């Protein structure tokens, strides 16, 4: 066939844009279907799906459409400007995704946040967790063709966005924690806003459940689809609620408690089935667990400063000026040379940051392992053996978020 100009390549066997046939075992002919990156769902990734009839035989993922080189960019700028960079990996989950970097930088700088800052960070982390779970569920709804779930999910998320805007100044990318504390203190009206937010959420979530999760069509689309048993899940290295849906009782918040998690009482949600429904149901139950964590923390919210005493000592005007002077202090703080590591439980699983510092204000190397990347292989494995129509259900039941995976 004639080769035309960029970006077309119509040669047989080139799966860049066109469908091609390929040989399956036993001499059967399979069809390679290219799904994405423009497809009637959400997410910027491409899947090469090999089909036998409409049964999925093999899936080859092609991630990297949102690879923006966060790890490399982090080496070329001062460490306090790396925080908003890391956050962009998963913007509605911003607090959780930048948590490990903040903890690692605290180790490097020798800072210890005061109790009020620890509580505030944990509260915000749980609120972003609820928001991200709602986001994933709303998108699961639109993937299944259930627009009502999308509308209700996003309406609920908007309440969270408004509360974040009230507390931190931005709707989505909140960049709330800084090494040694938090960027802004909360006022009594903000605490009241969070209380009311939880109250409204509880009421509305009941309706959301009736509309979407109790819907027999949703159950039929999700139950028994994309099943991974506990052995397979451990082999594939799945993390987060998707591993807990198969019965892996692992939660970083419980096993290595950081900040205020050691002072709250919560259960680690697990399910046994390991199918798409179990993965959805685990996340649904986690929303309620997160709400109870926030309520417990708000009840015992301690007073005092929100920034470490060492930072306040270096910038005595902080108390007078409020948040203004915090970032300026870092310009004359140098991290100790060495390696620092921190693991936290982000919404979609364990997130790891590994820092190498050499004593300058630039980070020598930052390794940033995100949960979506680790769940990608399991998602692809779970799709195999199902019908093409079940592919969207499996895709979104893993809550796959490409910017988070590609970094």
């Amino acid at each position, binding site marked *: 066939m004639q080769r035309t100009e*960029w970006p077309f390549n119509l040669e047989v066997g080139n799966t860049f844009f066109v469908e091609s046939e390929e040989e399956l075992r036993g001499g059967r002919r399979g069809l390679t279907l290219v799904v994405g990156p*423009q497809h009637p769902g959400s997410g910027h990734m491409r899947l090469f799906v090999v089909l036998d009839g409409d049964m999925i035989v093999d899936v080859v993922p092609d991630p990297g*459409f*949102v690879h923006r080189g966060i790890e490399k960019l982090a080496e070329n700028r001062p460490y306090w400007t790396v925080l908003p960079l890391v956050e962009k990996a998963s913007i509605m989950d911003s607090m959780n995704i930048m948590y490990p970097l903040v903890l690692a930088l605290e180790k490097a700088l020798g800072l210890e946040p005061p109790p009020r800052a620890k509580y505030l960070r944990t509260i915000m982390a749980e609120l972003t967790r609820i928001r991200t779970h709602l986001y994933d569920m709303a998108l699961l709804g639109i993937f299944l063709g259930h627009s009502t779930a999308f509308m209700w999910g*996003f309406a609920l*998320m908007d309440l969270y966005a408004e509360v974040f805007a009230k507390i931190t100044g931005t709707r*989505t990318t909140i960049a709330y924690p800084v090494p040694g504390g938090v960027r802004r203190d909360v006022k009594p009206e903000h605490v009241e806003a969070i209380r009311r937010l939880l109250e409204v959420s509880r009421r509305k979530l009941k309706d959301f459940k009736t509309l979407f999760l109790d819907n027999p069509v949703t159950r039929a689309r999700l139950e028994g689809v994309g099943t991974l048993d506990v052995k397979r899940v451990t082999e594939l290295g799945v993390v987060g609620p998707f591993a807990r849906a198969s019965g892996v009782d692992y939660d970083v918040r419980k096993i290595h408690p950081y900040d205020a998690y050691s002072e709250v009482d919560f259960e680690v949600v697990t399910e046994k089935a390991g199918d798409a429904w179990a993965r959805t149901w685990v996340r649904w139950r986690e929303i309620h667990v997160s709400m109870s964590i926030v309520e417990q923390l708000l009840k015992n919210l301690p007073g005092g400063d929100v920034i470490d005493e060492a930072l306040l000592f270096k910038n005595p005007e902080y108390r007078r000026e409020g948040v203004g002077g915090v970032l300026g202090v870092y310009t004359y703080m140098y991290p100790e040379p060495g390696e620092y590591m921190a693991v936290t439980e982000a919404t979609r699983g364990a997130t790891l940051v590994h820092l190498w510092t050499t004593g300058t204000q630039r980070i020598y190397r930052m390794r940033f392992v995100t949960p979506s990347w680790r769940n990608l292989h399991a998602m692809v494995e779970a799709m195999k053996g199902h019908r093409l129509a079940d592919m969207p259900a499996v895709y979104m039941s893993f809550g796959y978020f490409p910017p988070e995976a590609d970094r």
Partner: protein
Amino acid sequence: MKTLVSQAVARLARWGTKWSLWPPHLVTACCGVEIGHIFGSVYDAERFGMLPMGSLRQSNIIIIEGTITLKMAKFVKYVYEQMPEPKYVIAMGACAIKGGVFYGSYHMVPASKVVPVHAYVSGCPPTPEAVLKAVSKVQEQIGHAEN
């Protein structure tokens, strides 16, 4: 008489285009989170005649949601070329303007180098109100077009 009729038809076509700006599902980066809010029930872009379309053959506006990486750029171009005329582009977010927080990355390109852009929205990510303002700017451009 003939010119009068053709002018009236053109005017009607402009009016129709103005209130039926349909974007394809082309999510390029994380600003897609705010795009969800725009089409959600709170901001409801459908009152401006905006409705996400599954097929790019039925759509006439691309909202570039944040960063375009080099890998994505050829697909943005490819989608843009397949869309029927007239077509419009809104570049959303600091990354699409010049790079934003990712300025200097080895794997990204500003939106204006890939497709002609009709309106820019600043912010990281922009608020839904800002994007809807850009939509109304594009509608103004359509309304004041020459032919």
